[in-house]
């Protein structure tokens, strides 16, 4: 087995495209929200009475700036916040199981050619794992105590390889950014919704008295769409975060198979993790998308239906196992 399987690369390329699209959509949403705010609440388009005042967007750049600042904040502070909130402690080499974990992480860092990440253990009986950090040099891999106790070495290797996949593919960075973008989207839409309520349709907000009624049908249409966006943004953003997370799980599974050359190890681990479907209480809702399996232990992740898919942070485990097994089959 001296060559990486080509199908692994294909899978990665497909996932990368999907993710790029989702992130662009995220940014577009920010921009549209900002422009709509300019247009309808700040009265930037005050062209009534013939005198066309040039359109100067104020809210749009502010929206982008706030989003950017929040991303920077999350970029540097997000990882330690997640680790602290899940009560993670550094792995202890004097404990045999945690020594094995450290060894397995070292094996996977060699297989991936990445620097050695920090290794943490969460005292929780439910098997789960996640990776955080702003880049591979500052990455941390965390597993629960339950994972160490329930998986054998080969399975643990699969899970660690999956997390190293998240590190190598820079998912850890993207997920931090997505979380920050989501935060700012929710913040902005909340702000816009309040402004609509308080400012009213003929609000006296803005120095130019941007009261506008009537107008071209196109503007009205945009206004309706914008209001809908303002109200729905928290949900749309949430779904996007979930979708990004879902495609990345397949991606990391593919990387794990590439590192270990043993997709079956991870497939077996996923089966065990699924069987222990109790919620991982130590890991909060906000970090759900980081985990190898949904820590909320929700049934929503087990179905592939359309509505269920929209709200799940993770793809159905059965589907992931099937893909991993087909990789193993393709090699035989």
């Amino acid at each position, binding site marked *: *087995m*001296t*060559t*990486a399987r080509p199908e692994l690369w294909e899978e990665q390329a497909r996932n990368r495209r999907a993710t790029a699209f989702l992130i662009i959509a995220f940014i577009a949403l920010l921009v549209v929200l900002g422009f709509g705010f300019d247009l309808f609440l700040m009265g930037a388009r005050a062209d009534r009475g013939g005198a066309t005042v040039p359109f100067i967007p104020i809210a749009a750049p502010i929206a982008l700036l706030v989003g950017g600042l929040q991303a920077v904040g999350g970029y540097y502070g997000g990882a330690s916040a997640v680790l602290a909130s899940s009560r993670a402690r550094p792995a202890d080499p004097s404990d*045999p*199981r945690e*020594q*094995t974990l450290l*060894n*397995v992480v*070292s*094996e*996977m860092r*060699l*297989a*991936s*050619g990445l620097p050695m990440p920090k290794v943490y253990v969460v005292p929780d009986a439910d098997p789960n794992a996640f990776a955080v950090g702003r880049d591979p040099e500052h990455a941390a891999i965390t597993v629960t105590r339950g994972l*160490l*106790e*329930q*998986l*054998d*070495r*080969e399975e*643990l290797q699969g899970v660690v390889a999956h997390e190293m996949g998240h590190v190598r593919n820079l998912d850890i960075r993207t997920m931090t950014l997505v979380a920050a973008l989501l935060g700012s989207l929710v913040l902005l839409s909340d702000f816009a919704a309040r402004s609509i309520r308080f400012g009213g349709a003929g609000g006296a907000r803005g120095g130019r008295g941007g009261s506008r009624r009537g107008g071209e049908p196109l503007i009205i249409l945009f206004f309706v769409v914008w209001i809908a966006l303002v109200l729905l943004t928290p949900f749309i953003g949430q779904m996007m975060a979930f979708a990004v997370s879902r495609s990345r799980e397949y991606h990391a599974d593919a990387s794990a198979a590439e*590192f270990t*050359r043993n997709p079956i190890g991870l497939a077996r681990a996923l089966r065990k993790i699924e069987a222990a479907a109790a919620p991982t209480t130590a890991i909060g809702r906000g970090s759900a998308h980081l985990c190898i399996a949904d820590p909320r232990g929700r049934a929503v992740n087990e179905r592939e239906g359309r509505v269920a898919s929209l709200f799940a942070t993770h793809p159905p485990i059965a589907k992931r196992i099937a893909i991993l097994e087909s990789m193993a089959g393709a090699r035989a």
Partner: protein
Amino acid sequence: MGFLLVFALVPLLVVAWAIGLYNGLVRLRVQVESAWKQIDVQLKRRHDLIPNLVNTVKGLMKFEQETLGKVMEARAKAVGATTVAEKSAAESALSQSIGRFLAVVENYPDIKSNQSVLKLQEELTTTENQIGFSRQHYNDLVMRFNTQQQIFPASLVAGMFGFKPAEFLQIEAGERAVPSVDLSLT
């Protein structure tokens, strides 16, 4: 004016693009070299570990002195090897002797449950795995480096600056079998 701009821009873009390809190739070459060094680091680590590990279980495994002795012997040969061919033969013999030792331990359930034996098993397994995975990573990088050199248009840049394909490491069948020794935790 517009024409002149285009005439000036096109060569600039081509050069910038060629620089990008060149840098990509250099980066891969550096990665291949450091992956090669990493294998040596791991082999050295194994040489350093074995005497200590064997000493900790010597007393417990009196009846398997021969297997342990063979591991030490193979280690001595690997440390003493000078030429590349000698080295690779000695290292793979060492891997095989460790594999045999791990298989033998499986035959003694009472010994297998001993803490220091378990620790030894784990250390040997991870050492073998770490060597195996460093080699795998080296070969992965060699494949990417060599492919990159052959793909047009990077092949033009590779040819111009005399990039040469790197050599794959042959991984022997006996050696590859080692990580599959099942050492279940549960």
